[in-house]
Structure formats: structure tokens, C-alpha cells
């Protein structure tokens, strides 16, 4: 079974341009996360979905970042316009559980490395 799939792997854009990242979680996983990871740091949560509902987007910079998870499967994270400080690795993860389900591990994709120049 395929793991969490992200694309593209790498993206280089000029500042003020838009960019989008795509994530296909593991089949059947209803909880999906987007994380941002700066160099030498741990991943930081941007948004969490349970099915198609964004249940935690408190750390998403809403002036320039947006995300969607139509039909509760694939998800897209967008930045418009990108700034130099947005350069980072954007990770997607998924979990089978949700709601009151007991904790279980999150599976991560390989990430998209964004460079804004």
C-alpha cells in the first residue's frame, strides 16, 4: 500500500508568486495534517482536517495561506503571495483515527521543499 504521497518534491519560485502543494493521504485515513518544517527545527502544525472539516487552523497564516480537502481525501495547501520567509519543507501527514478514537501514529509524506527567491 502506498504511503502518504506529496507533490511536487521541490519547488522554487520568486517572491510574490503563488504556489500550491498537493497531498494524497493513506487510503481510509480521515485525519490529515499540514506541517511546516524550517531547517533544523521540528515540524509545526499549520492545519488539521478531520474528513473535509478543518478542525484546527489556528496556526495557519490566513492572510496568505489557504487549504482545502474536498471530499475528505486529497488536500491542497496554497500560498499566495509567497514571501522569502515561507521557504521551508511542507509536510503532510495522515492518521486513521479521529474524534474520540484512541491515539495512533501519524504517517508522513516526504514533503515539498519550497524555496522562495
Amino acid at each position, binding site marked *: 500500500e502506498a504511503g502518504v504521497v506529496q507533490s511536487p518534491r521541490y519547488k522554487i519560485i520568486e517572491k510574490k508568486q503563488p504556489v500550491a502543494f498537493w497531498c494524497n493521504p493513506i487510503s481510509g485515513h480521515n485525519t490529515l495534517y499540514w506541517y511546516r518544517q524550517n531547517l533544523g527545527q521540528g515540524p509545526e502544525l499549520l492545519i488539521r482536517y478531520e474528513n473535509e472539516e478543518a478542525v484546527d487552523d489556528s496556526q495557519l497564516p490566513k492572510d496568505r495561506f489557504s487549504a482545502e480537502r474536498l471530499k475528505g481525501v486529497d488536500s491542497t495547501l496554497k500560498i499566495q503571495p509567497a514571501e522569502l520567509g515561507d521557504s521551508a519543507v511542507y509536510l503532510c501527514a495522515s492518521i486513521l483515527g479521529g474524534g474520540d478514537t484512541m491515539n495512533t501514529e501519524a504517517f*508522513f509524506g516526504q514533503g515539498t521543499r519550497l524555496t522562495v527567491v
Partner: protein
Amino acid sequence: GESVGLHLPTLSVQEGDNSIINCAYSNSASDYFIWYKQESGKGPQFIIDIRSNMDKRQGQRVTVLLNKTVKHLSLQIAATQPGDSAVYFCAENMNSGGSNYKLTFGKGTLLTVNP
């Protein structure tokens, strides 16, 4: 705010030695903890987890210890191998109301295994 952090940013060991990576957490509401391994250019990979009702859990060559009294978590790797070289993150999961999986990561420890 409450956070998860690590005592040591880097750890260098000889092949065959045991490694211990430490993590301090401050959120007493956290009920689930995970150790992840991240190799260069890859996403975090699950190693082992532990629930708050346990104080020790063992896997293959790895053991996680949880001390809730001092809010401390450790990862022990036995007979460390060059392939264990990576950044190790602890993560805590807080039950956020009726919906869980608010997974928060610490900053990571770089483990280097010398042959």
C-alpha cells in the same frame, strides 16, 4: 506557552554503543507520546509510541521511558548502528476537547553514529 523540547541538540556515539535521547514536555494534559526518526530529505518516520498510562515500552532495539512526575521522555537505542544516524523528534499529542490528535513536535536531536 506549553511546548515539547529536547535537552541535547546533538549526540555522537560509537557504533555498537547504546544511545539515549531525552525530551522534556510541559503539558500535563498530553496523553500520548511518539518518537520519530527523520533522515535527510525524508519525512519523519514512526519509531515507537507510549501512552500516558505506561512508563516503559520496548520495541526492536528501542525502548521509550516516560516519567510523568518530571514530565520527561527518553528514547534508548541499543547497539546503535550507522543507519540510526538521523534527527530524532519527540512529539506529544494533547487531547483537544472532543477531537484529539493535536500533535506537537519538539526541536529534535541529531544523532551521529561513528563507525
